[in-house]
């Protein structure tokens, strides 16, 4: 199981990387952490003409605060995000979710930009970007543009990125919401069968003003469950509201059968995980965690 031959290019800047992508006209792949790409190359599921290594591009891996946002460079490794004090303080949901990605070895190498561009429908990073309302900054040969996470993912391994586009940064707005996350995987560290993230803004003693649910693994792409979120906003997360949200998630989902679970099983799990994640959110609120 060895890759088919390919040309190896090393980009010294994002400008150079997108110029190379442009030159290969869709037959080149960017190599960042390689934790998804290299297995695909090894299995010859991908046989690009060229692999463009972007790991040497300087200043693309920072985590910094800027004007109400946390800006994370596309080359930031999962471990760096996991251990970042800024992420821990500002984006505890991201700190929590990143620990579910792969294992220590994978997190040493895997990058946030690579993960989003790869767009695995079960990917935790894509779910975090959606749940946290991130903006994805994309560079092309003609300039940079910003894409909201909810407009970014189109389908399995399929995004709005054009062949000569490169993700260069992900921006997460600060928030003060209580957050929670739960996922089901067949084995520890495996791709998830289903995952749910919740954010809620407390209101009064036990009420919740805005609640947002994001769901992974239950459709061809991760999604923000708008109907379910609406069913939970301005409630105290009473059992009937939670049940309505679970039903709305199932309604919005388009689960499919694959090697890890059947569509029916995913639909069965979804309301259960919605309830669990909301219970966790409530518990964290009462513990004073945000």
């Amino acid at each position, binding site marked *: *199981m060895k890759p088919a031959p390919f040309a190896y290019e090393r980009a010294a800047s994002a400008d150079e990387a997108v110029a190379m992508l442009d030159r290969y006209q869709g037959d080149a792949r960017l190599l960042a952490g390689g934790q998804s790409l290299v297995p695909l190359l090894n299995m010859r599921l991908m046989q690009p003409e060229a692999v463009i290594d972007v790991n040497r591009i300087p200043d693309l891996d920072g985590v910094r605060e800027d004007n109400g946002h946390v800006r994370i460079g596309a080359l930031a490794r999962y471990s760096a995000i996991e251990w970042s004090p800024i992420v821990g303080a500002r984006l505890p949901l991201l700190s929590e979710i990143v620990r579910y990605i792969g294992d220590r070895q994978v997190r040493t190498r895997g990058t946030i930009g690579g993960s989003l561009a790869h767009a695995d429908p079960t990917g935790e990073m894509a779910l975090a970007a959606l749940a946290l309302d991130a903006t994805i900054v994309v560079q092309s040969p003609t300039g940079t543009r910003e894409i909201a996470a909810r407009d970014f993912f189109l389908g399995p391994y399929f995004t709005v990125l054009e062949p000569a586009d490169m993700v260069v940064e992900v921006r997460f707005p600060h928030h003060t919401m209580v957050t929670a996350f739960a996922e089901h995987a067949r084995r520890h560290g495996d791709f998830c069968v289903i995952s749910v993230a919740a954010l809620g803004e407390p209101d009064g003693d036990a009420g919740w003003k805005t609640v947002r649910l994001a769901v992974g693994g239950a459709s061809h792409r991760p999604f923000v469950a708008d109907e379910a979120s609406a069913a939970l906003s301005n409630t105290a997360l009473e059992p009937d509201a939670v049940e309505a949200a679970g039903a709305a998630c199932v309604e919005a989902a388009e689960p499919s059968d694959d090697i890890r679970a059947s569509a029916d099983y995913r639909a069965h799990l979804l309301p259960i995980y919605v309830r669990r994640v909301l219970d966790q959110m409530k518990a964290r609120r009462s513990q004073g965690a945000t």
Partner: protein
Amino acid sequence: MTQTLIDVRLTVNGEPVEHAVEPRRSLVDFLRHDLGLTGTHVGCEQGVCGMCTVLLDGEPIKSCIMLAVQADGAEITTTEALNGEELHPAQRAFKEAHGLQCGYCTPAFILTSVALRERGLDIPREELKEELAGVLCRCTGYQNILTAVETYLAADD
């Protein structure tokens, strides 16, 4: 198809290495076939089993899903770096706790543990399981591996 070879210069177990490699050469194949360092094992070749774990600049990675050309300029540590007159403290802990049976996964567990110890954290057993989850063992059931790693992390030497 003949591939253009690319020169790589890196440090492997403290020694400078220069070699010309095909771009598609994985780091683990480079270590085993080009350098003869067969202590790093190959399992799944898709980044799942962790047998090929080595340290890249001190951090554990799976060398089957990193290209050798990417290691240019890097410092790689394989299990051979632990060779000496006496057993390395991690090796001794695995021996004493019976943390291995067939031994195929052992270099990967030991290198992962060495990196953990470098981080200098006091890691409870539950978190230790998380940290070691990237390496599979099909013999032991993991309990003795956990005990070995705990012993090693707590040891004074």
